[in-house]
């Protein structure tokens, strides 16, 4: 086991150093092998650890919190991690009350490229409940996907996390279903998520199968229907009308209801069928008109 000395020039920074290294060791798995010992010897502070990459360059003069944290990130190879992991590592510090400008500096330091709103979004993201944050790290969300969750309130995300245990949710499923559930809760003006959980479409989906994948498909479909009552109802009427035409002909339409047109597909195996099909089409005029009226 190696021992290196880190000279801390400011006593206040020293206190922070002990706290930060201890917290990070406790909270973040890649630091779990580091042992931290505090020992006051003038302005010196010794760290013992068996993690080889932490220690070789740790003899460094630190005159501010920023220096200390920069050193921490540098020596822990944070910049080699995935973006979200880097952000997660940063979160361990920023959650403890460090400010906006520090976060800005850290993002830059660990090589997360700046784009509009990055700092604001990062602040929101890293302040999410730690279970939610762990979930999005474990499911390998992209940074963009993770940021898209920042528009939800924390109670909703915790609720979604609980819901996810009943289903199979990849990162993209989680994003899609969060959006759908959130909209549905707002549409139904239900801010009590416990009550929202009892909603028929959710309970029915959970009860639909023991297979998590099947349940998830079921939930997606039921949420879509609940969110789009007009489309669901009109498409049902159109489907019923379309089913009344002859079997050799199928009628299709734009399910979003935007395009006012019916596409007719006819199946011919012999040119002698042309006349019969033509008659079928003529007989279907009323049905086609009714369908167009609905579009």
């Amino acid at each position, binding site marked *: 086991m190696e021992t290196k000395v880190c000279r801390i020039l400011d006593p206040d920074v020293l206190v922070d150093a002990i706290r930060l290294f201890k917290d990070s060791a406790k909270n973040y798995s890649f630091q779990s092998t580091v042992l931290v010992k505090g020992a006051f010897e003038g302005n010196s502070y010794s760290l013992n650890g068996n993690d080889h990459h932490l220690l070789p360059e740790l003899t460094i003069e630190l005159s501010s919190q920023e220096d200390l944290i920069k050193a921490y990130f540098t020596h822990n190879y944070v910049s080699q991690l995935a973006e979200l992991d880097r952000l997660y590592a940063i979160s361990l510090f920023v959650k403890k009350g460090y400010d906006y400008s520090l976060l800005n500096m850290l993002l830059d330091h660990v090589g997360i490229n700046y784009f*509009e*709103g990055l700092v604001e979004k990062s602040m929101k993201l890293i302040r999410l409940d730690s279970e939610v944050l762990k979930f999005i790290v474990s499911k390998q969300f992209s940074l963009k996907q993770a940021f*898209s969750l*920042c*528009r939800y*309130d924390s109670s909703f995300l915790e609720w979604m996390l609980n819901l996810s245990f009943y289903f199979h949710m990849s990162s993209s499923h989680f994003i899609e279903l969060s959006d759908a559930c959130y*909209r549905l809760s*707002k*549409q139904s003006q239900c801010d009590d998520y416990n009550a929202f959980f009892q909603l028929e479409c959710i309970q029915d989906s959970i009860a639909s199968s023991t297979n998590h994948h099947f349940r998830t498909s079921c939930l997606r479909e039921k949420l879509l229907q609940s*969110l*789009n*009552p*007009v*489309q669901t109802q*009109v498409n049902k009427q159109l489907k019923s009308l379309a089913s009344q035409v002859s079997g050799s002909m199928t009628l299709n339409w734009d399910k*979003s*209801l*935007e*395009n*006012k047109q019916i596409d007719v597909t006819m199946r011919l195996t012999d040119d002698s069928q042309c006349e019969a099909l033509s008659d079928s089409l003529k007989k279907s005029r009323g049905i086609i008109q009714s369908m167009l009226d609905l*579009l």
Partner: protein
Amino acid sequence: MSKIKVDPSQEQQAIVEQLSALGIPYQVEKQDDVISNYRKGKKNIHVVPKKGESMDTCATISDKYICCNVKVLKSVSNCPYDCSYCFLQNYLNDGTTKVVGDIKSLMDEVKEKCAAEPDRFFRIGTWELGDSLALEDVLPQARFLIEEFASIPNAVLELKTKSDCVDSILDAAHNHRTVVSWSLNSEYIVDYQEHKTASLPKRLAALKKVTEAGYLVGLHFDPMIIHEGWKEQYKALIEQVIASTNPDQIAWISLGSLRFNPEMKKKIEQNFPASSITHSEMVKGDDGKMRYVKPLRIEMYDVFLSHLKGCLGLDDISPLSPIKKSTPLFYFCMERWDIWQRFFGESPTSIQHLDLLFAQNFYERFGQNIPFPTIENYLSK
């Protein structure tokens, strides 16, 4: 507004002299840095020189949605108001509020382009990237533009606003070549979605003032938004608007429903977490924009137009019908041809066709001295 900067090249412009006259402090400074946050940019006005071409056509993305071919003059960029549905929050790379100081150069371009096609009638608006009148009390552009347009033989200026900043233009020599338009919405939407704009009563009072000053007016009921009590609220709006103006002076009336691209949906939800406008049933159209599902749009337009027709005492409001002196030009903004057919019995065959209908309506109702609009000058282009 917290900070006004003037580009050194613009220091001698009349618009800047006005700042001094009003005692409004400003700094003369070149601004090279970009304010990426559009909200922060709202508090930083920069008087800038005209750069490149400033007159363009209002964006048309898909031929399945009919647009009106209006031209836009980019005299401002960004806006002091903060409407939840505003597309600028997802559009501007630089959020700095920019006001072109050298308005004369803007007008030189307008005159050159209008002169190049003397047989066409141009409608030119200054509202694409901002509000035409919101900054008028600080950096007045409108009066100069109005008086310049007064002498262009084949153009009309459209100033569109959510403000009540009209006092400075009331006695301008407009020669009926300026249409002062309002973007109007129900009182609920104005109060809860159109942040920092003039209240509905203030907008209506301003509408009354410009009507009395003899201006032509435009009414834009766009974006119509479904909310609790929307039917009654929109009916009340119609009644208040009609009572605040003279129908004979209404040049045009447009209707449109809430629409935005999917990226902007996320911006709205981030920037306006209390807003519920993104929660309704919507579909993505052929132009990539989210809109209310068509049966909902039809219901909205039906309620609205039935009441509007009743209030104006009009049976036929089709822009394709023979033109009557008392009938404004009605149109939908970015709507499908079948919506036009449902409410007007027919639809323009193209964007250019709708442009022609505007010219014909204006010619018949207000502009005997504009070029006679012929099909050849519009549909063959």
